[in-house]
């Protein structure tokens, strides 16, 4: 009945697709803009393409403010999009509220970064889960069925025995337990896709792994499509099948996780990987490879023309500041691409 059937659809089926997804937030105008005719906007997300498949994890990596959360919220239809398309099983969808939105929610669920903030402090765990079940009609028709469904959910996220947690308030649980509750709530809708927005960044190092492992386990058992958003590229390598790198609202590189992390193509990805802590490096050695000043992330209100990374790029060419790079295939592994003119065949030829 209410138990979630394991692996009901074939793996690799495309669940959710973003095509040319764009989001601009209008900026509140100030007094001094009074006489100008500009309409400023934060170009939070520009032309993002993304495909989530059943049984696969796609990681979205990027520094703070690069637009990762915005992508997730767009995919969850929590923000209206400025441009582009979101396709659920191939069908273009745009829902705002009401029954259509609920139908969408039932298939695409989101997990938030901060488990301390994403659970309402005044409600018990039981309330949170019951609502999720009821909204999507998975609560059964009797109290006993509901109870059963609640137990199943908590067991699924390894909060056992369930009775111990059901009537607790969020503040009575540890961070890891809370994030599990948040995941259980998402599962209450029996979704096909999970959008996990930095699900472990607020958690203690020692319990991050537990959550990631739980997600991986769920992916396999329930054949979920997962979007894993993180700023920790190492965890993307560990957890995701595919990794996409975002910079200033745009995708700059994508491909199979191992390839992207081990042989990064885009200068930004390289910088990111170089900067990650490396215990094998010798103490206190500031190698010449890490430049003194890598500059600042660009303003998203007036993003740099051409490639958005060109002001910070060590290998920038004149062309980079004028032409917007298109995704270019890198030969090393299938599906590995980078939006960088360095890989333009003409350029390489030169």
């Amino acid at each position, binding site marked *: 009945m209410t138990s979630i059937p394991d692996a009901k659809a074939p793996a690799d089926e495309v669940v959710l697709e973003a095509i040319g997804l764009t989001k601009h937030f209008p900026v509140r*105008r100030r007094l001094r*803009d*009074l006489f100008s005719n500009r309409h400023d906007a934060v170009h939070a997300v520009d032309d993002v393409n993304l495909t989530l498949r059943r049984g696969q994890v796609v990681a979205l990596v990027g520094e703070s403010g690069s637009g990762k959360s915005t992508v997730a919220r767009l995919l969850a239809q929590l923000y209206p999009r400025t441009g582009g398309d979101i396709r659920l099983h191939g069908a273009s969808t745009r829902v705002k509220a009401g029954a259509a939105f609920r139908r969408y929610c039932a298939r695409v669920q989101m997990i938030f970064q901060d488990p301390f903030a994403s659970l309402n402090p005044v409600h018990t765990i039981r309330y949170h889960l019951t609502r999720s079940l009821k909204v999507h009609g998975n609560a059964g028709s009797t109290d006993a069925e509901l109870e059963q469904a609640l137990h199943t959910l908590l067991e699924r996220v390894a909060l056992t025995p369930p009775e111990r947690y059901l009537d607790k308030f969020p503040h009575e649980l540890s961070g890891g337990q809370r994030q599990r509750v948040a995941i259980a709530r998402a599962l209450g809708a029996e979704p096909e896709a999970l959008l996990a927005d930095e699900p472990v960044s607020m958690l203690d190092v020692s319990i991050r792994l537990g959550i990631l492992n739980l997600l991986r386990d769920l992916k396999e058992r329930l054949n979920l499509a997962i979007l894993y958003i993180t700023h920790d590229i190492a965890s993307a390598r560990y957890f995701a099948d595919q990794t996409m790198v975002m910079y200033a609202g745009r995708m700059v590189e994508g491909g199979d996780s191992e390839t992207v992390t081990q042989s990064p193509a885009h200068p930004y990805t390289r910088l990111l990987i170089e900067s990650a802590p490396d215990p094998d490096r010798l103490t206190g050695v500031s190698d010449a490879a890490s430049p003194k000043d890598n500059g600042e992330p660009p303003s998203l209100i007036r993003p740099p023309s051409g490639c958005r990374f060109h002001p910070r790029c060590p290998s920038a060419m004149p062309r980079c500041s004028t032409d917007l790079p298109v995704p270019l295939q890198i030969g090393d592994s299938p599906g590995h691409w980078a939006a960088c003119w360095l890989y333009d065949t003409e350029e390489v030829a030169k």
Partner: protein
Amino acid sequence: MKYFLQRVAFYLFTAWAAITLNFLIPRMIPGDPVQALVTKYQGQLSSQAIDSLYVLFGLNKDANLWEEYVSYWKQLLSGDLGLSFTFFPTPVSEIISNSLPWTLLLVGITTVISFLLGTGLGVLAGWRRGSWTDGLLPVTTFLSSVPYFWLGIIAIYLLTGPDSFFPSSGGFDAGLVPAFDQYFIPSAIQHSLLPALTILISSVSGWILSMRNMMVTVSSEDYITVAHAKGLSDRRVAMSYAARNALLPNVSGFALSLGFIVGGTLLVEIVFSYPGVGFQLFQALGASDYPLMQGIFLIITISVLVANLLADIAYLLLDPRTRKEG
């Protein structure tokens, strides 16, 4: 542009709505100024006078509400607030300009003092917790729960009398003429002491409390710890770091409270027969003097709006975060 226009639209709309309400409300009151006048004099004014008063006040002409409203706006826009009935035929603007300075001086200065004192004590209470300042709160809370007028009357009873330094009523000595000289000013100050004191006593606790709470909140900010870690003197940390930041929310509260000066002190002025606008408003209410009521309401509306503007500006000036990006 949009933001600016929104702000302007907000002020304009609020002003319009408030003025329109000002126009309507007095007209909802039954009774008319002539009757009120006759009643006020309880037999001293013979009832034959009624007819002549209607003529005098210009109330014998019938006008519908809309026409009145239109002409009200016309008058307003030409800066004319009409003639008061209670003080017929004195123009409302004259009455207000006579009484407004008193209110502004008494209540304005008291509000400023109360704010400064309350903020100062609040800083102390928030910073030196566990010292004598802890006893301040319950006392001031109790005092501020006492109604103004009650406190004022008790003060008059206890502190004034034939040989007392404190006069029991009025804004200055009866034998004097308002002028900026060595007789008038001390007298005016002497007369304002008691009313000022009662306002102070009942309003200071609010400032103490909010400042204290803000100080406590700010005290746990990291930059305070940093300031201590820097080895700065306790005074400098308390003032330049803690109080300076804790002040911000209070300042806009202060600006708003300035807006309520005019409207908020009715009772002090009544009890101390202080010649301010609050007392005028009270008289106008009793006499169905709606030109005067409207005039005073207009002043209040404008002062609240100006105070809002001031609050906006004060925040802009005091909090660099709201200033333009450098």
